């Protein structure tokens, strides 16, 4: 079932739950992994993914179809992740660097972390990036999204996204060289 059909079925009371269930099954993994890469911890990612789909349920009726459904869901997931990280900063009155420390601790906790040294170091390099650069890098490198799609999600021009991605790549390379993996 394509997205247009899903939305139509969601708008009808009799098929609303059925359509929503299909929608969740179709996009849950993308949303989850997008969030997980930002917050690192599984429990946090789980909460935020659920929250994302609750928001989808709340607002899908008013979705006008100006963008694709999955970029709209990505946008909600992005906002949830950024909101979560901001709350963490506010809660512990932390500067950005210390949120990175918090994420690093999560990465080192070994709870649902199961990768080789190289992939863990790669994640550590990503954590050192500013949040928006990390978002751009994740969407481009891991999710292989087009810049036009990322532009819709982050409300940023394609040129700025490319520059942001380039800086991220350079910083990651520098980090990896420094840790000598």
């Amino acid at each position, binding site marked *: 079932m394509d997205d247009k059909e899903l939305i139509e079925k969601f708008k009808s009371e009799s098929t609303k739950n059925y359509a929503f269930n299909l929608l969740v099954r179709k996009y*849950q993994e993308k949303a989850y992994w997008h969030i997980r*890469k930002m917050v690192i911890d*599984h429990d946090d990612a789980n909460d935020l993914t*659920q929250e994302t789909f609750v928001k989808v349920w709340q607002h899908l009726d008013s979705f006008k179809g100006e963008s694709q459904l999955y970029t709209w869901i990505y946008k909600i997931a992005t906002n949830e992740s950024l909101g979560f990280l901001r709350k963490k900063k506010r809660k512990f009155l932390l500067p950005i660097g210390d949120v990175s420390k918090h994420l690093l601790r999560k990465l080192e906790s070994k709870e*649902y*972390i199961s*990768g080789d040294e190289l992939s*863990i170091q790669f994640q550590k390099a990503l954590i050192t990036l500013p949040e928006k650069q990390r978002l751009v890098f994740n969407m481009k490198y891991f999710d292989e999204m087009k810049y036009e799609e990322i532009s819709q999600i982050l409300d940023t021009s394609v040129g700025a996204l*490319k520059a942001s991605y380039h800086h991220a790549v350079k910083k990651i390379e520098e980090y990896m060289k420094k840790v000598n993996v």
Partner: protein
Amino acid sequence: MKNIFDTEKNKHKPPFSLPESYFDDFQVNLEQRLQGEEKPKNVSQKLPFGLPKNYFELLPQLIAKKIEKLWSPKLWYQQPKIQWSMAFMSVFVALGLSWLYVTFDKVLSPEQELANELKKIPKEELAHYLAYHQPDELMEIAHKEQISIEIPTKQEIPQIPTDTLQLKKAIKVDVEEILNGDLDKEAIEEVLEEELNEEDIEKLINP
């Protein structure tokens, strides 16, 4: 004119070196950068994250439950406003009760007050006072203590005027006022029994 870029002829070469095949890859790297398609070297695209078993099979149910919980009609006592009001009222009642407890703890019953006052009077003095002013009560106490006594006459008892009692000086309360007040007679007896033991009464009878 001398060509300074003719490195063949220039004996002073710049002290720089280049990565291997830099100029061969230059164009490709530039194109990748312009398109924003470059990739970091020496990294793996594999994510080091694990998941609980069957997580994605169970996630739709978790989401459905969350939505159901949010949208199910709430009973009156589940309304946030009502819950907040109830919480405030509970705090208010709790504070009120603790205030009452503290306040009432300080207010003594008339019996307790009497007992406290009588404790301050020397026992001998109290016995004399009773023998002189309240012989009936003294008899009753003696009877309860199972002591047979004969109340001496007023002339036989060394009379101690009430207003010279140490009590009056110390606590500024007239014993008479206490004993003849509105207190229940039984309560007075009870207190006096506690205050006056066998020895005191015998001392009074056989001074």
